[in-house]
Every structure is written in C-alpha cells, then in structure tokens.
C-alpha cells in the first residue's frame, strides 16, 4: 500500500504547484530586483539631502510643468478628436488610426529626429517659423511637443476604445429629449466615460514624465530649460551618481503611484459597470 502523501496524483499536483510558484517568483524577481537595487544603492539620508540639490529641483519642476501642460493639451484636443474619429466615417480613417498608434512602436529617438526635421531651424516648417523670429527646437516648447508626440497615443487609444464601447442608446435618448450633440457629449458621454479617460490621462502623464529619447533629440539637454528628470538621470550617471540615483528613485516612486492610481480607477470603473 502506497502512503497517501506519495501517491502519483499527490506528487503530480505538488510538482505542478512548485513549478507555478517558481515561475511567479522568477518573473517577480526579474522585475523587482533592479528597482530594489536602486533603493539599496543609497540611504534615506543621502536621498533626502539630494532632493534639495538645485539640479534635482530644476529637473523635477520642469518635468512636472511640461508633463502637466502636455497632458492638458492632449486631453483638450484628444478627447473631442477621439470622439469625432470614433463616431464618423471619413476617407483615410484607417491611416489616421495607424498614425495614432505609430508613436507606440516608433523608437522615441526617431520621433525626436522627425520633429527636428520638421520644426528645427532648417526644418520644413521650422525654417518659416525662424523667419518670423520663432524658434521651437531646443526650447521648453520642444520638450512639450516631444512629450505630446510620444505620450498622446496612451490617451487617444483609451478614449477611442471607451467611445467605441459606449452604449449609444444614452446619446440617442439625450438627442430625442432635445439635447444638442455638444450638450449630449458634455452631459452624458463625458461623465459616463470619465473614469476610463482619467485612467488614460494618468498613463499619459506617466509616459510624458519618463520621456527621454525624443526630448534629447529635439529639445536637447539644457539645465532649467529642457533638462527633464530622465535627462538629469542621464547626466547624473556620468557626473554625479547620487543625483542620478535620487532622480531615478523619485521616478520609480511616481511611476508606482501612477500605476496604483490606474488600478484603483479601473477597479472603481468595474464596480460601476
């Protein structure tokens, strides 16, 4: 008689659980260890004292200002655009759809070069702006433009998906009751999709905050003007590791908060559904 603990079924189940556990552990460690290493490389005292460093403060302030402005522009232009794009049929819609998604797979450095070729001093449009005394490349405006180019798909895709899935009976009802298309959008569609839109906005903000490749190509790396946090990390690693680590840890904390916020919003959305 084989003892119960050694039965083939019991052994097979134990091996399965052990395999699954090891897989989860391996993936978790692969993702968590580099992040943990950042925190172990410094001490709370050094981290807190580095926070007041002018380079850190300047990069932090610039990143927040540019990311907030980028997000505001993406929301103000992107929300009505995504709605019109979803509800209307027009020639070249598939092409526009592809262009919306393109920055997600395009290397950010290429995006930066593309922006430079168009808006740089000798660029196709930049040349004319330059004649009017307007310079775009290597300014704070260029940082914002790079962030919008790279981060906007996160919001646009989310908004498109929400408007596509939205039950149009609500809109039809509002229209028959006497509401104009704009009023219907503002009082019915927007409030009922707000949770998902905020979730998309948070992701967009996070992506804008972490933007590096397009920014360094199109806006350069000028402290106080175009040096955002990721660029300051790059400089810090080469010249002052403490500064680089401090900003990196700050970015990890912000990213973590962003992901928690997105998960809470998604959970609340699911609760309302």
């Amino acid at each position: 008689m084989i003892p119960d603990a050694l039965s083939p079924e019991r052994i097979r189940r134990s091996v399965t659980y052990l395999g699954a556990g090891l897989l989860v552990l391996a993936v978790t460690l692969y993702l968590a260890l580099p992040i943990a290493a950042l925190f172990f490389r410094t001490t709370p005292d050094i981290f807190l004292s580095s926070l007041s460093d002018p380079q850190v403060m300047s990069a932090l302030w610039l990143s927040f200002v540019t990311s907030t402005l980028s997000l505001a522009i993406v929301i103000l232009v992107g929300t009505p655009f995504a709605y019109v794009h979803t509800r209307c049929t027009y020639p070249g819609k598939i092409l526009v759809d592809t262009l919306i998604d393109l920055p997600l797979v395009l290397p950010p450095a290429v995006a930066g070069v593309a922006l430079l070729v168009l808006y740089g001093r000798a660029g196709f449009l930049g040349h004319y702006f330059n004649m009017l005394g307007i310079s775009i490349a290597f300014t704070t405006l260029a940082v914002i433009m790079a962030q919008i180019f790279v981060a906007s798909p996160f919001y646009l895709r989310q908004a498109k998906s929400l408007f596509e899935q939205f039950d149009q009976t609500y809109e039809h009802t509002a229209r028959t009751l006497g509401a104009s298309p704009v009023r219907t959008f503002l009082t019915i569609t927007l409030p009922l999709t707000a949770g998902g839109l905020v979730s998309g906005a948070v992701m967009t903000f996070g992506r804008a905050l972490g933007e590096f490749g397009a920014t360094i190509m199109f806006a350069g790396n000028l402290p106080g003007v175009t040096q955002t946090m990721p660029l300051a990390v790059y400089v810090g690693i080469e010249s002052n590791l403490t500064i680089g680590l401090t900003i990196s840890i700050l970015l990890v904390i912000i990213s973590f908060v962003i992901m928690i916020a997105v998960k809470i919003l998604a959970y609340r959305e699911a609760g309302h559904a």
Partner: protein
Amino acid sequence: MLDVAIARNLRDFRLDIAFAVSPGEILVLMGSNGSGKSTTLNIIAGLLHPDTGCIRLNGTTLCEPARGTDMPIENRRIGYVFQNAAVFPHLTVRDNIGFGLRARGTDPQEIRTRVDELLGAINLGDLAMVKARNLSGGQKQRVALARALAIRPSLLMLDEPFTSLDTESTRGIKDLVRKFVNEMQIPCIVVTHRRTDSSDIGDRAFVLCSGRKEWEGLPGEMPEECLACQCV
C-alpha cells in the same frame, strides 16, 4: 396625427410601410425580431434616414428626402423610450426626468413643478434623489416614461417596453401609458412581439413582416393565419 409613408433598403430586405396614428390612439407595432420595427421608430425619431417617403406629425413635415426636409432629432419633440430604458445612470431620478426640460432651456421653477408632477404620477417621489443606476428594471422603465413625457411630446414611442419586466411592473407601465396618452391626446406607437401586449394596450395592431405590412386591424381580430405565422 402622425402620418408615415417610408421606404429604406435594409441589409436583408426593403422596409416599405405606410400607416397613420391618431391623437389618443395607441398603435401596437408587432413582428418577429429583425422585421423592421425598431428601425421604423428610429426613422421616425430621426436617428436613421429613409431613402424615400415622408413623415408628418400634426401637419409638420419631419422628414421628406425628396424635398430635402430633415428636421434635427432634438427639434422633433418625440418622447422615445428605448428597449433598455436607457436612464442616465449617473443622474438622479429627478435629474433624469428633468433632463429634456433643461436641454430645452425651460425655466427652473417650471422644471421643478413638472418633475414633481411626474414623480407623483409614476409613484417614485421617495426615490427622487436616488441615482438611476440603483433602480430596479420596473422603476427604470417608469423613469424613462416620465422623462419622455416631461417634454410634453407630440408623439410617444416605446420600443419593447415590457421586455424583462415582471407581470406587476408590466401592468403598471401599461396603465401609465394608457393614462398619459388619454390625458395628453397624443399618438403613441408601442413596439412589441407579444400578442398579449397588443390586446392589453393597443387600439390597433400593425403586423410587420420583413419590412412590409402583413396585417392591420383591431388587436382582438388578428386572423389565425397571422397568429400562426412566425411574425407574431
């Protein structure tokens, strides 16, 4: 008085019908799923467009493609209750009922009075400040009816209003519809595929089969061959 004579090519057949509904009359539009009932209501409401024909309500042309007439949806003054009630979940019962009046720029005091009146009529005064997402199916249907009537429509249309309602709620909605249509003396179209609904509430039945009129007459006089047909 509603006069409808419309045609529109649909995916599987051509919808081609003509009928009229008098003030205070309830026309029950019957037919199997996909026979063109909801499409007809959507065309009358302006959510879809006919290829040809004409829709007149109390002498005003709502739509006539040949003359390029197409009144905007929001100006047609049609109370339309959709199949799933479509009460706005993020608004309170009171705000749902007053939505159409606010959209039309009605005086706030008048909105309050009218909404209070309707809340009493549908017996939901206690739930006035409850968010519509928390209502039961029957309560949602009553709110949707009151919301459609708040704008004092010239025509009332209900698309399968009794689906997914229990017997008591169905009875309540039928009584309310009959009461309001009599009081307001407006034409009313009720879409259903249940014969019992037509005899309970309808003054006249119109049976639709693949976009064409199969039969029209008093609900109680529906012929056997029509009852045997899969349309009803």
